[in-house]
């Protein structure tokens, strides 16, 4: 089952592309695992290749920004030292040390009096002068530098993020374009085999997910990694002893993160499995609501719901709790680090081995150090799901493509419309032969009706004629020319198609009607307004469109426009009519059309068929009695072929089909429906 891979991680509810907050991993589905993580990641890097100049630039900006950010606390520490020196200077003077005595002299004096700790403290500070307070000009200098550094970090950080946005969005636009282009190159055999929702999910959710994870991880990963390196460097620079102490918490936090993740992961999986089951049950019960009620099954439904609901509660309570402990645990480690640094740092300051400003800077660094580490950890999850999505997009991009058109295609100047299937064999699955050695000829202007039960291969004939699928052997000719020697576009532009699936796109009625009209390529020249109107009248579209407030400018969309199924069918007929093809394919299934519109649909189809070679897939025998040839298909074979009278007289499959359709006691009421009868 592909259901698991079908759903990419749910999009977090918050604003898109937002910074990866502390809630990361709480809202999303478990990261779907990529099949070939490294390979797909490398390939994705390839997709980003045109942006390599930008990526380089943004990395540079990132380096500068991080370097400046990292330098900040250290310089700020100098400022603290200057302040502290002022305090100590005043303290010395208050303690009776003559004003103007330098720090070294004071330290020496203290040491002489046996106060080693104080001496050390003083000597660790720069420029202590007894009686002199805070050196404000120096402080101002330092603070100005700090401010400039922070401003620089801000500018470069901003620049980096902006370049990032451009690079990612460019890539996503290109990826979407690639997928779209691919969509029009895949053979229908591929498209038909995939669930529509599956393809749709790849081109929408997956690309979305890739875009989002790229935005969130690419810049962050660079910054976080650089920050870790930079901060670590600064920590060692300030005090390697403290740095080693602080580093002890790193393996601790890694172990802790992994332990928590190990425990929460199965709970998340359980949570999403329970969510899936519950949603499925809810969907089923709500969709089948009337049955549940009519069959009095509410209690059973509620019972099952209660069980699933409880299971979901259990799983989500556990997963939320376990993953929720991550934040406090990390906080605790940070605090632990803080305490250790404060104590050891304090001891070292007191003994003069370290300045107070450095301790302050160090505390800031150690806080900055754990943060990017946890960020990288949570980003790995995100990256997993992003790469899994990218992989699914790549799979689509790697799908087979239809055979290219011949290099020197044949072009028919004037199509008469003789269509011949010559010894055609075809099957969707080599194991199950469907059509074998089929011969069928439609002379120009003739109507060929194809009847037979579902699965007999009626639609397959259309698929082959339109070259949606290619024949396995034999050939289909148009005016004697093998269809494969023509370009697909040329062939298809000669054939108009009306399917039972009334596909209309979102746009105005007029746009939809003109869909098949290609300027300069139409048989009767460019479409005039008079022709347009004549066509819509002939296909019974005009009357109902006129009743709409916006007429032909009415926008068709999913639900808003109240067109009936029959009216939509009429639109598709008019669309084919306007395209003015030489050959027609009509699939007339009108079970959802109300009876009055159905008459119109029938008449419109008849109007369309006039003077055109037509293939009609018939569902109702009454409508095809006047066809030139009726082809009865069963199991991919033509079992009978002839006109209505001949076939009925033959007493074979057609006659049986005909009887089964109208098996009822005979009532003699002929005159009533006279004149309305055969449409």
């Amino acid at each position, binding site marked *: 089952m592909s259901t698991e891979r079908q759903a990419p991680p749910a999009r977090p509810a918050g604003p898109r592309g937002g910074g990866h907050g502390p809630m990361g991993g709480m809202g999303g589905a478990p990261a779907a695992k990529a099949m070939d993580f490294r390979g797909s990641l490398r390939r994705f890097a390839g997709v980003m290749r045109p942006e390599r100049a930008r990526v380089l630039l943004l990395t540079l900006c990132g380096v500068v920004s991080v370097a400046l950010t990292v330098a900040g606390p250290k310089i700020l520490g100098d400022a*603290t030292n200057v302040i502290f020196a002022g305090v100590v200077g005043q303290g010395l003077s208050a303690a009776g040390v003559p004003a103007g005595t330098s720090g070294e002299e004071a330290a020496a004096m203290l040491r002489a009096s046996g106060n080693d700790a104080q001496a050390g*403290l003083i000597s660790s500070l720069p420029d202590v002068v007894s009686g002199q*307070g805070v050196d404000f000009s120096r402080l101002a200098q330092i603070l100005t530098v700090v401010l400039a550094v922070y401003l620089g970090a801000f500018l470069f950080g901003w620049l980096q993020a902006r370049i990032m946005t451009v690079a990612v969005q460019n890539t996503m636009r290109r990826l979407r374009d690639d997928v779209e282009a691919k969509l029009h190159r895949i053979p229908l055999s591929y498209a038909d085999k995939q669930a529509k929702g599956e393809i749709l999910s790849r081109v929408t959710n997956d690309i979305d997910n890739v875009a989002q994870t790229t935005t969130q991880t690419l810049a962050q990963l660079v910054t976080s990694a650089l920050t870790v390196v930079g901060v670590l460097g600064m920590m060692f620079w300030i005090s390697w002893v403290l740095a080693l102490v602080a580093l002890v918490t790193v393996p601790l936090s890694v172990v802790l993160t992994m332990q928590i993740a190990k425990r929460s992961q199965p709970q998340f999986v359980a949570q999403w499995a329970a969510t899936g089951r519950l949603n499925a049950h809810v969907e089923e019960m709500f969709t089948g609501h009337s049955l549940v009620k009519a*069959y009095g099954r509410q209690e059973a439904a509620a019972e099952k719901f209660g069980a699933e609901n409880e299971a979901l509660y259990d799983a989500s309570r556990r997963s939320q709790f376990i993953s929720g402990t991550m934040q406090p645990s990390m906080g605790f480690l940070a605090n632990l680090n803080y*305490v250790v640094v404060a104590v050891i740092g304090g001891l070292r300051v007191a003994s003069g081995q370290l300045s107070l400003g450095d301790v302050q800077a160090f505390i800031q660094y150690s806080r900055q150090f754990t943060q990017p580490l946890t960020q990288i950890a949570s980003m790995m999850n995100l990256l997993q799901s992003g790469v899994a999505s990218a992989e699914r997009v790549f799979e689509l991009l790697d799908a087979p493509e239809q055979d290219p058109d011949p290099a020197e295609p044949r072009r028919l100047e004037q199509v008469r419309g003789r269509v011949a299937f010559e010894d055609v064999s075809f099957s969707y699955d080599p194991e199950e032969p469907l059509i074998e050695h089929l011969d069928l000829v439609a002379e120009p202007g003739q109507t060929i009706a194809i009847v037979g039960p579902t699965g007999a291969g009626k639609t397959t004939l259309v698929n082959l004629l339109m070259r949606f699928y290619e024949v396995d052997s034999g050939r289909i000719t148009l005016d004697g020319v093998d269809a494969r020697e023509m370009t697909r576009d040329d062939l298809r532009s000669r054939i108009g198609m009306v399917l039972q699936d009334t596909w209309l796109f979102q746009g105005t009625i007029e746009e939809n009607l003109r869909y098949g009209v290609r300027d300069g390529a139409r048989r009767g020249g460019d479409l005039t307004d008079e022709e347009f109107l004549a066509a819509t009248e002939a296909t019974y579209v005009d009357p109902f469109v006129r009743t709409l407030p916006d007429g032909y400018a009415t926008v068709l969309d999913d639900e808003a426009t109240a067109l009936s199924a029959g009216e939509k069918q009429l639109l598709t007929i008019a669309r084919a009519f306007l395209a003015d093809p030489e050959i027609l394919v009509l699939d007339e299934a009108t079970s959802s059309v109300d009876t009055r519109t159905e008459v119109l649909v029938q008449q419109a189809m008849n109007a369309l068929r006039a003077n055109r070679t037509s293939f009609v897939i018939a569902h109702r025998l009454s409508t095809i009695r006047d066809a030139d040839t009726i082809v009865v298909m069963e199991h991919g074979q033509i079992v009978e072929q002839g006109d209505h009278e001949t076939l009925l007289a033959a007493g074979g499959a057609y006659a049986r089909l005909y009887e089964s359709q109208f098996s009822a006691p005979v009532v003699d009421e002929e005159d009533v429906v006279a004149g309305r009868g055969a449409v």
Partner: protein
Amino acid sequence: MLVSLARTYLRPYAGAVGLLLVLQLLATLASLYLPSLNADIVDNGVTQGDTAYIMRVGGWMLAVSLVQVACAIGAVFLGARAATALGRDVRRDLFDAVQGFSARELGRFGAPSLITRTTNDVQQVMMVVLMTFTIMVMAPIMLVGGVIMALQEDVELSALLLVVVPVLGIAVGLLMWRMVPYFKAMQKRIDAINGVLREQITGLRVIRAFVRERRELARFGTANEALYDTSLNAGKLMALAFPMVMLIMNASSVAVLWFGAQRIDAGQMQVGALMAFLSYLMYILMAVMMSTMMVMMVPRASVAAGRITEVLETETSVTEPAAPVALASLSGGDGPRGEVRFEGVGFRYPGADEPVLHDVTFTAAPGQVTAIIGSTGAGKSTLLNLVPRLFDVTEGRVLLDGVDVRDLTTADLGSTQGLVPQKAFLFSGTVADNLRYGKADATEDEMWEALEVAQARDFVEALPEGLQAPVAQGGTTFSGGQRQRLAIARAVVRRPRVYLFDDSFSALDYSTDARLRAALRPRTQDATVLVVAQRVATIRDADQILVLDHGRIVGRGTHAELLADNETYQEIVSSQMSLEEAA
């Protein structure tokens, strides 16, 4: 909406929530206490060179950290429990509410919307509550606590907060306020591009048939470009967010050092206090940021809460009778016979101009087939749905064996009827499970018998697992015709007094349709059969045909009678059959 919903559903967990608040308060206070202890280390330990003091306060800091983590984890535990319990309870109440709905309320909301409300909307509300419990309640505590601690360290320096806090709040708020429209626009653009893709994937054949690939590429290109532009603009604003917040925070610490230095120089403040102050400033600014983001999150969750409340507050139009009539007492104590009678029945959707049904009166007697025919929108399905009370009449009454259906419990009523809906819907499980939906204690023999009547025996037998063959949700593993036959078998196995077929034969080919009707006839001999149909062939041998047009009965009689004198019927017939076929 959000608040009242949360308040209602958290009431059972008030104790846990109260305890959670206390724990969060303790945890936050502990966090806030640490910098103050650190200040002590600097001011009393480091400057005095008192190593023992440093160690002692260090130990104290460790203890405070432990308290902090214990409280925080306790709070997470309680929060996760209360929030997920809230989610569970809201879901349960929603499910119960929807189960109680009649088809009318269900139609008003639509099944997909109700599904979203029961699942996604509840999830959203739950996550907001959880976030509030674990993070957001800390923000005000941290803000107030941070301010108090800062004031304690130095009142005058705290004046800086009056500048810094509003600056950050306004900057973040402004940025988000500018970004929200972009995010909304972006969602629209994504929907647009997905719409184009959905159309292209479903219409791949039409596009290729009309050779419009190039046009579609251009259409997609436009949508893609629009999404690109919006994403880029949103991204550029977003790019400002993090660096900006960092700049404000860093600039504030520079300001604190500068002004703090002057206070220290004047002997009004100690160095350790300055360092503590810096820490508190960071806490306060974090709290401001969290609150700003929370303000931004609430509207979204409020919408979800509103959608949930709307469902919970909707009352069903089909209610159980206060004093139900017992089934056994029907037909003078013989139990239900199955006679269905409509008396002046009218039905109108609330707020609709036109009634769906108007003054419908007829009797469907046991042993007879009553067929209802008419164009789409004539009210055929509505009429049928009034019998099992999927809707209730708005005028007149529907009687079962002379008793108003509203005087029977829906369970009793349902047990007398076998409904086969228009869309053959199967439940996930096995074929047998689906048949037992009709009759919970059906034996295998009964099932096979029902399948045989429904012309489904052959294909079920052909399945390797037979009756135990799995049925996917919605029955997608079966073809449309097979689904319909299984749905019919489900009604048949029930042996109901009243059969309700809602256009149930449309997916069958003509020969199967004919065989099925023939097999049904003996089975339904004593039962009342109501058939809604589109095909004339399906109903031409019905005992009574009702022709429905715009909610009114415009003709009744047998096929022959109607063919003779009913214009609407003639029209329907002539559209489906040619002259001699009709006759």
